């Protein structure tokens, strides 16, 4: 158990980006990602410009570089996928040392790497400067379907509950069973999955009862009005910069 600012992705701070209403940051993130995706792969300069624009956001958010890079590591699975592409792609090939690499594969790898890194970077800025409930409330204020934000809210709320339950079940198993064969271990894990499913199902029923008891009739009440200023002007300028870069790259390609 820890304090108020305790979700793993959040970086506590009071920067201008932290103090921006969450819906503005959500719009900015999606708009930036759209610009990144629209940028043609071979316009390498444009990705440099987009990276600079992202760096401005990271700077304004006062996120330490080390923290930012560490959070970026979430894209590692994509990186591994990208690194494989030059080896499995079709011709023409280019010789690098003793390796024969596919040229389309290299561009494909660059495409995945550059776009994933920039997009993940933008989402790191959002998640590092915004508490989870604020992100959900922001989606609410953007008129995202209430059902979806409610489901996301429940998921986040109960993930921790279910994970701690799983932890207790595993401890109980470990306490009673010493050295298991692989087969026994697999069988035990399978039964744990079943147990966890039943427990989660029962909890769902109890939560539903608790909701009914407080007058739930099929709709989740919306989040309250934002406590933070929207300040669209600066954000729109930032978004516009990324779109100008993307447009220029499309025109020159």
């Amino acid at each position, binding site marked *: 158990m820890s304090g108020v600012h305790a979700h793993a992705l959040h970086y506590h701070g009071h920067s201008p980006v932290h103090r921006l209403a969450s819906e503005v940051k959500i719009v900015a993130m999606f708009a930036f990602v759209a610009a990144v995706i629209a940028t043609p792969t071979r316009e390498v300069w444009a990705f440099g410009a987009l990276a600079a624009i992202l760096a401005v956001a990271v700077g304004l958010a006062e996120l330490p570089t080390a923290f930012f890079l560490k959070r970026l590591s979430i894209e590692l699975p994509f990186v591994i996928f990208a690194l494989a592409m030059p080896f499995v792609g079709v011709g023409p090939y280019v010789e690098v040392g003793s390796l024969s690499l596919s040229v389309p594969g290299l561009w494909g790898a660059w495409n995945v790497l550059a776009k994933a890194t920039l997009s993940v970077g933008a989402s790191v800025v959002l998640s590092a400067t915004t508490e989870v409930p604020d992100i959900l409330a922001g989606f609410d204020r953007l008129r995202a379907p209430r059902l979806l934000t409610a489901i996301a809210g429940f998921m986040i709320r109960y993930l921790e509950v279910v994970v701690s339950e799983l932890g207790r079940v595993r401890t109980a198993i470990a306490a009673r069973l010493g050295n298991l064969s692989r087969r026994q271990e697999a069988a035990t894990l399978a039964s744990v999955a079943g147990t966890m499913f039943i427990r989660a199902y029962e909890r769902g029923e*109890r939560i539903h009862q608790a909701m009914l008891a*407080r007058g739930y009739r099929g709709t989740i009440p919306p989040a309250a009005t934002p406590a933070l200023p929207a300040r669209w002007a600066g954000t729109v300028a930032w978004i516009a910069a990324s779109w100008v870069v993307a447009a220029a790259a499309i025109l020159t390609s």
Partner: protein
Amino acid sequence: MTALLEVEDLAYTYPDGTRALMGVSFSVAEGERVALLGPNGAGKTTLLLALIGIVEAQSGEVRVGGVTLEPETYPEVRRRIGVVFQDPDDQLFMPTVWRDVAFGPANLGLPAEEVESRTKEALAAVGMEEQADRAPHHLSGGEARRAAIATVLSMRPDVLVLDEPTSNLDPVGQRELAELLETLDTTQLIVTHDLPLALRLCPRSIVLNGGRVAADGPTAELLSDAALMAANRLELPYGFDPGTIAGR
């Protein structure tokens, strides 16, 4: 005293044939604080769910403030009878404490300012204003319990029904919770295994066993009746003598 909550001959059999309630009758007057005692499997939780129609009793009647429980009055009865469930993880399902406390009033269709003032009032009543923006999983056990009570207080219930309010709390947490319940002047029905708590808070207790009311009377008297206690699998903590303690 006028009866605020009246339960008459309530009976419920689960679909699998288990007879959980076999004609339960009692009434609670306005301003009373009553303990509902009984061993595991006595039907306490079923009774609590039947009071608000989540479990639909096959026969019998529940009335609260003159409103009779039936499908058309579920919303009204659920506003009047505020149930605090045993596990705060079940009770607190919204992303923040504030939104959880506002959930009930918002469902009542109240205007936004009214929802806000009730939420503030309920949080203040349990001393949780500071934690309003926290996520439920960042609360301590005692805080979560207080937040759970606030989620119901914000609906301004006639009767507060609490299921095992002190379970999983350490002794200090238990005492603090008892002190909080003492400060609330809402009529209370407290389902509990914690007999010292019942003696401390509730002048009157109802003993439920095997789906029937086995006893209904002054808490101090019931807890001193060794035969009654043994017959209903009730047991005081080691060394606890209700005769030496000033009950209420």
